């Protein structure tokens, strides 16, 4: 197909006669060239070369995918995954059921890692002062430098890393510290909370406290977001959903928050409050439970909320938990721990990991740089130049060290500010090990040989500590042989690799001392705005900024893509005469940040929220120049909140990033689209309507009738299903300009409906894949029979028949069909997604759709087909649970179930008789195969208003 130049957007008032004639001629020319010969590169027509192996890799059969267990890091912690590879080419990430931080599911970031692996913008070479160099040159320069430091025991040498949870890397770090006692190690993790200090304040000793969410009847979160993006998201989501399934009536989640979070959306009762008010609520709750502190004055809404929460807490104190978020003051966090201790709720305490040397903070490093104490700075897998709190001015300070080494996946902002840069391998290319937040250790094994020469953190630290030069594999095996001994080592090693998690490594909880009540005084309210920060649900802290799947993954509530914004409450905007999309500037002390305003629901007046990770200048061709960098406004002393900020309007044009949809309000009748129930209540059965049309039953005899059931009470809105679908089904990313034209291609979207109002939202997430209607409205309108039904109830789209009339799309009441206006996946890709390397991410079992065809969710027909072929080869029926769709596999809370409706005992059949079962737009008689379970809101007495 010849490349087509994208026409400029046309508006009637801009169209001149000349322009119209140009377009006419262009149209005629493209019509004439449109009927060209088929692509010479396609196998059917041109290149018929076939290359067999010379030596067959053991255990590989071409065409049969292989699965390997490994772990992917997020903020330094590991999440166990099982990666699918076709002929040595990783294409899909699934969760590892044996891993405690995965339990078979993944988050959105793990799903997108395969695209990052094949990112052509990854750093591909060692660079000296920005110029391409090589390893020997770097090694000799580095060694010479280290020898200088060796003389003075490492004085003036500093290492900055992200959080390290790799036992072997920690061991190397300890060795390094021993070899160079004056070396200082600093850790900066942009999304790190402040768990440690609060525990010290309350218990007097350092403890790692982990709540057991699955055992909590009453959970109260104060500006905390356990369901938000992070290494704990999957495990927390599963724990809370499991708790709800066990007994919905006794599970109640209260959320008091300054900005709407995924936890707030999941809550049974939520209140929007300013952080100052939330701190007062925590103090009042502590006073209620017997703390000898002055009970602060609360507003009537907060008082009611707190009274209800306290009533539930006292009813079953041993099954109650309070979580206090990192943006609140250290005393409030300490008070939260004291409350938990008082309640004796389900919290485990763990001794801190003492194998690792003590690490300093980035603020200490900045001080040392400023004081001229740092001559050599080594930055491993961290990007402080873009992510460090703005008050440190870290990017400028770095130049104070004369020798700066950066090792990372990208030639990023920090690399540009360094004298040497070395590329590190992607986690899917490396040997390593890593612990999950709860301490379960996994081995990290490569799925593919490194695409470019690269050096891992292990390889960079080794020469520093004077360790022998060996491969990561040998080093890792040696480290584990040291831990396990040589007896039966091979068997244990093999088992750990196969299971994806090392046995007996999860630490045991320890008993904790009695908590002491921290001193609490009424915080003085600061004038001006409080700016709160949150990890971005798409790019996290910026490390995924160059991943197009994540950039195009809609934010949970605003549905914005390709950028962030300054989120603001509508009441504040009205007061200051600011409209959505205006450019404003926030000034906090010396720090200034300007960006577009987006009005957000559920945001407390006086609070602004900005997600981290945007405003990157050296992310790559996908992520450069999108959004604004919230880190500029952060302060190292209180990284999650900046108080006393001033705001002024700059201009009326703020380059607001596009959004694919909005938050739908649900007035009156529309409430049946996403109903909300009290626990134990049932939806009214649909009233039979008089009709001459006798409903046609599902044709009997066929052994399979595929169907899906989605529990909106378990959906946390994490988007993992959206990107899982994209990864499994070769769904293209289209870029921000196409999104502005409403041309997003996601086969599965998550609608969010609001049962409340802008100030007190009560959102319900509703994932919407194709409904696979039994009487599908898209089918009769297709003139070429490209939209047809198969015998198992799938509404299938035949790409080769489709001529692109888009009649089906107009006639689909659920709006789940997506049209390839351009060759989004096939010749006209966005950004660098057309690079030949990126094609390696495609699933070979799914067609890559061409320009001009309609596409939509297929219920992962390739997985159904694979299961059917396997079952038929063994002359049996497909068993329940054998077909797992991509969205279902990724879902942390098991909200999505898929199965055979023809089997009355299957989960989907059983769920059809659930009192919460409902069908979307049932009155249209489309008879969808995808149905829903209603959201339950266990608001409790007096809670229906909030």
């Amino acid at each position: 197909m010849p490349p087509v130049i994208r026409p400029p957007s046309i508006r009637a008032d801009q169209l001149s006669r000349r322009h119209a004639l140009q377009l006419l001629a262009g149209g005629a020319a493209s019509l004439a060239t449109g009927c060209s010969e088929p692509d010479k590169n396609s196998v059917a027509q041109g290149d018929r070369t076939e290359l067999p192996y010379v030596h067959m890799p053991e255990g590989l059969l071409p065409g049969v995918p292989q699965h390997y267990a490994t772990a992917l890091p997020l903020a330094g912690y590991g999440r166990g995954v099982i990666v699918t590879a076709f002929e040595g080419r990783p294409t899909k990430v699934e969760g590892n059921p044996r891993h405690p931080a995965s339990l078979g599911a993944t988050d959105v970031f793990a799903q997108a890692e395969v695209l990052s692996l094949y990112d052509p913008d990854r750093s591909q070479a060692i660079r000296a002062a920005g110029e391409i160099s090589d390893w020997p040159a770097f090694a000799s320069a580095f060694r010479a430098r280290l020898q200088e430091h060796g003389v003075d025991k490492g004085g003036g040498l500093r290492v900055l890393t992200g959080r390290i949870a790799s036992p072997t890397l920690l061991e190397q770090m300890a060795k390094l510290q021993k070899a160079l006692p004056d070396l200082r190690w600093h850790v900066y993790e942009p999304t790190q909370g402040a768990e440690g200090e609060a525990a010290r304040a309350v218990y007097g000793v350092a403890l790692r406290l982990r709540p057991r969410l699955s055992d909590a009847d009453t959970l109260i979160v104060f500006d905390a977001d356990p369901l938000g993006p992070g290494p704990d998201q999957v495990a927390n989501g599963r724990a809370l959903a499991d708790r709800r399934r066990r007994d919905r009536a006794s599970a109640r989640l209260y959320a008091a928050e300054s900005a709407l979070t995924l936890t707030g959306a999941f809550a049974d009762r939520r209140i929007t409050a300013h952080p100052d008010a939330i701190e007062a609520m925590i103090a009042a709750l502590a006073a209620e439970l017997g703390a000898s502190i002055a009970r602060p004055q609360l507003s009537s809404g907060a008082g009611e909320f707190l009274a209800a929460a306290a009533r539930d807490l006292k009813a079953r104190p041993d099954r109650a938990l309070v979580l206090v978020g990192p943006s609140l003051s250290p005393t409030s966090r300490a008070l939260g721990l004291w409350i938990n201790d008082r309640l004796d709720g389900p919290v485990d305490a763990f001794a801190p990991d003492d194998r690792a040397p003590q690490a300093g903070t980035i603020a200490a490093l900045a001080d040392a740089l400023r004081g001229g104490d740092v001559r050599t700075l080594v930055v491993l897998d961290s990007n402080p130049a873009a992510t460090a709190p703005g008050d440190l001015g870290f990017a400028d300070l770095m130049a104070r060290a004369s020798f700066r080494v950066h090792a990372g996946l990208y030639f990023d902002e920090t690399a540009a500010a360094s004298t040497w840069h070395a590329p590190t391998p992607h986690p899917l290319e490396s040997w390593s090990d890593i612990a999950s937040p709860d301490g379960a250790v996994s081995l990290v094994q490569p799925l593919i040989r490194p695409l470019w020469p690269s050096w891992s953190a292990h390889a960079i630290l080794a020469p520093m500590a004077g360790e022998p030069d060996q491969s990561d594999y040998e080093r890792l095996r040696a480290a584990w042989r040291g831990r396990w001994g040589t007896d039966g080592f091979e068997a244990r090693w093999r088992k750990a690799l196969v299971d994806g998690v090392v046995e007996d490594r999860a630490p045991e909880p320890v008993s904790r001392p009695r908590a002491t009540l921290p001193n609490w005084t009424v915080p003085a309210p600061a004038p001006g705005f409080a700016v709160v920060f949150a990890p971005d649900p798409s790019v996290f802290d910026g490390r995924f900024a160059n991943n197009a799947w994540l950039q195009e993954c809609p934010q949970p509530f605003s549905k914005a893509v390709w950028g962030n914004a300054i989120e603001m409450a509508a009441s504040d905007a009205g007061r200051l005469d600011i409209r959505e999309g205006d450019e404003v500037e926030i000034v906090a002390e010396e720090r200034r940040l300007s960006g577009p305003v987006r009005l957000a629901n559920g945001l407390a007046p006086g609070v602004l929220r900005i997600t981290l990770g945007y405003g990157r200048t050296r992310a790559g061709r996908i992520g450069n120049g999108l959004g604004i960098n919230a880190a500029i406004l952060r302060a190292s002393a209180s990284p999650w909140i900046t108080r006393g900020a001033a705001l002024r309007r700059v201009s009326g044009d703020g380059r607001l990033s596009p959004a694919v949809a909005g938050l739908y309000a649900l007035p009156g009748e529309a409430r049946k689209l996403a109903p909300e129930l009290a626990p134990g209540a049932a939806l009214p059965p649909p009233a039979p309507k008089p009709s001459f049309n006798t409903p046609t039953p599902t044709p009997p005899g066929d052994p399979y009738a595929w169907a899906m059931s989605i529990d909106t009470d378990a959906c946390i809105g994490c988007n993992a299903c959206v990107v899982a679908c994209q990864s499994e089904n070769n769904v293209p990313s289209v870029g921000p300009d196409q999104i502005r034209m409403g041309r997003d291609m996601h086969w599965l979207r998550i609608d969010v409906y609001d049962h409340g109002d802008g100030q007190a939202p009560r959102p319900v997430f509703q994932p919407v894949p194709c409904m696979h209607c039994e009487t599908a409205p898209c089918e009769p309108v297709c003139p070429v029979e490209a939209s047809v039904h198969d015998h198992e109830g799938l509404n299938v789209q035949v790409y080769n028949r489709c001529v692109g009339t888009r009649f089906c799309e107009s006639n689909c009441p659920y709006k789940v069909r997506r049209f390839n206006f351009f060759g989004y996946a096939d010749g006209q890709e966005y950004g660098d997604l057309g690079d030949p390397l990126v094609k390696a991410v495609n699933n070979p079992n799914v067609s890559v759709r061409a320009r001009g065809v309609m596409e939509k969710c297929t219920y992962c027909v390739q997985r159904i087909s694979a299961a059917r072929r396997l079952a038929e080869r063994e002359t049996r029926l497909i068993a329940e649970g054998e077909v797992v769709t991509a969205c279902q596999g990724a879902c942390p809370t098991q909200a999505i179930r898929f199965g055979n409706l023809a089997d009355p005992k299957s989960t989907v059949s059983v769920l059809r008789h659930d009192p919460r079962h409902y069908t979307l737009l049932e009155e249209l008689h489309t008879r969808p195969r995808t149905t829903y379970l209603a959201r339950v809101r266990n608001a409790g007495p007096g809670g229906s208003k909030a």
Partner: protein
Amino acid sequence: MAQLFHPYADTALRVALLGIVVSPAFLVAGGYALTRSPYVTGQTLVSPQPVPFSHEHHVGFDGLDCRYCHFGAENSRWAGLPPTEVCMTCHSQLFPHAEVLEPVRESLTKDRPIAWTRVHALPDYVYFDHSIHVAKGVGCTTCHGEVERMPLTRQATPMTMGWCLDCHRNPAPYLRAPDQVFVTAWAPPPDQKQEGLKLMRHYEIDTTHLMDCSVCHR
């Protein structure tokens, strides 16, 4: 006034009028014939190969089983081409210096694959699976022809969608007993009609779903 047209102009006009009516039919028929012709389907065409591999020799004379080289046939979508080391299992002993085998030896010494030319190439949007066909009693030679009589391999069948569907609609005439699938000299027995129906029941083949688009395309 002189005549403007010769008398044969009438005939020419009649022929032209007839042509207007008839030629579309010819065009359609011609197009149909073309798409089914070996020129388009590749049937009977022999492609040049780096090594003039003879199935006639290896299968017909030596009696090698199909699966010795095409070992994916029972478990994978692809029957697979043999890796060089499989060729060299025998040819390190047999004809170790033959000139025609030079590309094979070179492949092994230089660790570079032999670049064969595909004989059977289905379009990318067809998800054909060898394993299920083999498991359900479709023999190799049913689609690949009498390879034991092919000195150079050619595509024996048209491999068009219509040809696939002929069998998907009614597989009975082509089915074999499980032990006959890899027999290259298999010919339908005289009672294939009853035998085929019996085998359909034995393999539990249900043709209702076999005509669905989603069986081969996704």
